[in-house]
Every structure is written in structure tokens, then in C-alpha cells.
């Protein structure tokens, strides 16, 4: 309903068939400020369903959908949820189930207040609507949800992170010194001389040129690429993680006469370089 181009489609509530639990993780000191989250995995231990209950199930009701949402509580106490992962689980299986909650931890890092815990809402829903075994999904239970939860099988949050002191970029390159091969990723000055370009003469009135900067150098690769099962394909590369726009004054033709006009060109100047997997988002702290 937030899209300008898509009309809101009203729905009718057919059934509310979910059992929901909220997991609270204290994140104090878990992720140092100078670290990059690579992957966050929520592990839940699915307890075995009693055999007698399993025998009563039809094949259609042998699965349930488990959905993980990040629960955000705002300062005015209003709350909202953000879907981060969802998967089917079989009622016939038990054991550890893993969910990718990297998005939730990134959201929490960027949007939560200091000291606020990470809240993950776990919902178990019916996968098929129908008269058969309407409460089958309620047989899916994760350890520590009830009294029978044992300490060892409690929900676990696994955080894979990289120390940016060793695996990140090093800020600005030494001015005047050429970047040696294999040197660590840094931001290097690069001047774009607009006055020296034929197309820009008389057309671009301001600026005569600008410092665009570029990201150069190598990035340290984490040990054992198979450690993480994230959707990252290539090695970590030195890329522009933050950029700013460049305003220019150009002379535009209007009715046979020239008229100066201001235009803002996005992503023209590199503000910060970072080491990142190609295509992976570069998390950063948002402003207030």
C-alpha cells in the first residue's frame, strides 16, 4: 500500500491459524562497532511430534510454515514487523532448523535504539486450508517454548562477523604516493577536469572540475570461503560504499537563447570505500 503505482488490493481474512512466539536476544557487546555482519543464523530445535498424533495426520497436513519476522518497537510504543525468512517444516522431522536472519540483525543495527534487544517473532502457520487436521501446525513446537525446553536446545542466534580493522578498507590512500600492487583498499584522489573535455566547454559553466575519488587496492579475503553459506558469489572487492551527488550549472538552450540551469548528478563523488562481496549490501549506521 506504500507504492504509488500499485493500487491497494483489499483482502478478506479467511482464517487466523498461527501460533506466534517472540524471541528476545540481548545484543549488548555481541557485534563490536567496527565489525561487519556477514550472516546471522537463527537455530531452533524442533521437538519430535508424538507418534500417536502423527498417525492421525493426513498427508496434506504433514507440513507447516514457519515464518521469522523482525519485530520493531518504536519510541511511541507502536510496533511493526518485517519478514526476514520463511520455510516449510515437516511434522515428521525433528532437530535443528536454521533460518537466515541477517536482514533482521542489519535492520536492528540501523534502526534500533541503544541497548534495545533484538526481537524475532516466530510464527507457525497452517500450510493448507481445509477441514482436515486444522490444528496440525500446533504440533510444531520448538524447544524452550514450553516447560520441557532444555538448556541445550534453546533457540540460538549465530553471528558471523568480520573485524573491519583487518578485513575493511583503510580510509584515504597516502596522497602523492602510488598505490602498490596488493596494497589495502583505500580512497584515492582523482580529479575530473571538465574544462579539458570538449563536450563540456561552454556547456558546463560550474564547476570547472571536481575531486571524484576512486577506490583502489586489494581486500583481505576471509579464511575458508565455505565458512559462510550466504549468497555471496565472488571475493571481497574494494568498492565505493558511500557517494555524494555533484551539482553542476549548465547552459541550456531555450527559444534560441542560453539559460543557466542547476542539475544534480547522483553518485559522482566517492565519500567512502569499503571491502564487500559483489552485490552484497554495505550496512551502515543511519542518521537520526
Amino acid at each position, binding site marked *: 500500500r506504500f507504492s504509488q503505482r500499485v493500487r491497494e488490493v483489499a483482502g478478506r481474512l479467511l482464517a487466523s491459524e498461527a501460533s506466534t512466539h517472540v524471541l528476545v536476544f540481548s545484543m549488548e557487546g555481541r557485534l563490536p562497532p567496527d565489525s561487519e555482519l556477514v550472516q546471522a543464523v537463527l537455530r531452533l530445535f524442533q521437538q519430535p511430534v508424538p507418534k500417536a498424533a502423527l498417525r492421525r495426520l493426513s498427508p496434506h497436513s504433514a507440513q507447516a510454515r514457519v515464518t521469522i519476522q523482525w519485530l520493531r518497537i518504536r519510541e511511541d510504543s507502536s510496533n511493526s514487523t518485517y519478514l526476514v525468512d520463511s520455510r516449510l517444516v515437516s511434522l515428521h522431522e525433528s532437530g535443528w532448523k536454521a533460518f537466515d536472519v541477517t536482514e533482521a540483525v542489519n535492520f536492528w543495527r540501523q534502526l534500533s535504539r541503544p541497548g534495545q534487544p533484538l526481537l524475532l517473532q516466530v510464527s507457525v502457520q497452517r500450510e493448507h486450508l481445509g477441514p482436515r487436521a486444522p490444528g496440525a501446525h500446533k504440533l510444531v513446537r520448538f524447544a524452550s517454548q514450553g516447560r520441557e525446553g532444555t538448556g541445550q536446545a534453546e533457540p540460538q542466534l549465530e553471528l558471523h562477523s568480520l573485524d573491519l580493522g583487518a578485513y575493511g578498507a583503510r580510509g584515504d590512500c597516502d596522497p602523492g604516493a602510488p598505490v602498490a600492487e596488493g596494497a589495502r583498499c583505500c580512497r584515492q584522489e*582523482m580529479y*575530473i577536469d*571538465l574544462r579539458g*573535455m570538449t*563536450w*563540456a566547454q*561552454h*556547456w*558546463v*559553466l*560550474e564547476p570547472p572540475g571536481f575531486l*571524484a575519488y*576512486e577506490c583502489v587496492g586489494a581486500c583481505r579475503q576471509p579464511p575458508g570461503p565455505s565458512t559462510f553459506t550466504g549468497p555471496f558469489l565472488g571475493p571481497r572487492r574494494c*568498492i*565505493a*560504499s*558511500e*557517494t*555524494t*551527488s*555533484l*551539482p*553542476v*550549472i*549548465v*547552459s*541550456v*538552450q531555450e527559444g534560441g*537563447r*542560453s*539559460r*543557466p*540551469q*542547476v*542539475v*544534480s*548528478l*547522483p*553518485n*559522482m*563523488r*566517492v*565519500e*567512502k570505500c569499503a571491502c564487500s562481496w559483489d*552485490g552484497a*549490501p*554495505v550496512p*551502515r549506521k543511519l542518521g537520526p
Partner: protein
Amino acid sequence: LTGEQVLESLLRQLGLSEAPGPAQRDAEEPATPAHVRAQYVALLRRSHGARSRGK
């Protein structure tokens, strides 16, 4: 970043297919009115404060 990329971005922003040719240009640069210069300076200041996330 290359000069070509700056040109491409400029053409995209102005909705043009190519840079104005020499015949279209005035012999002298037009004087920039004060309000256009003020708008430019304001954008310049804002771009130093507001960063956008890269890819």
C-alpha cells in the same frame, strides 16, 4: 568515474540524447543569475552532508 560517465549522467538528467554542438552554443558564456548560483551553492553544501549508499 570517467568524463564519459559524467556526460551520460548529465544527458540523462536533462533528457537529451547528445551534448549541444558548437553551433548551438553562444559565443559568450551566459551570465549566471544570482538565484541559480544560490541554488548551486545550496546543493553543493547539501551534498557534503548527505551521503547516499553505493551499490
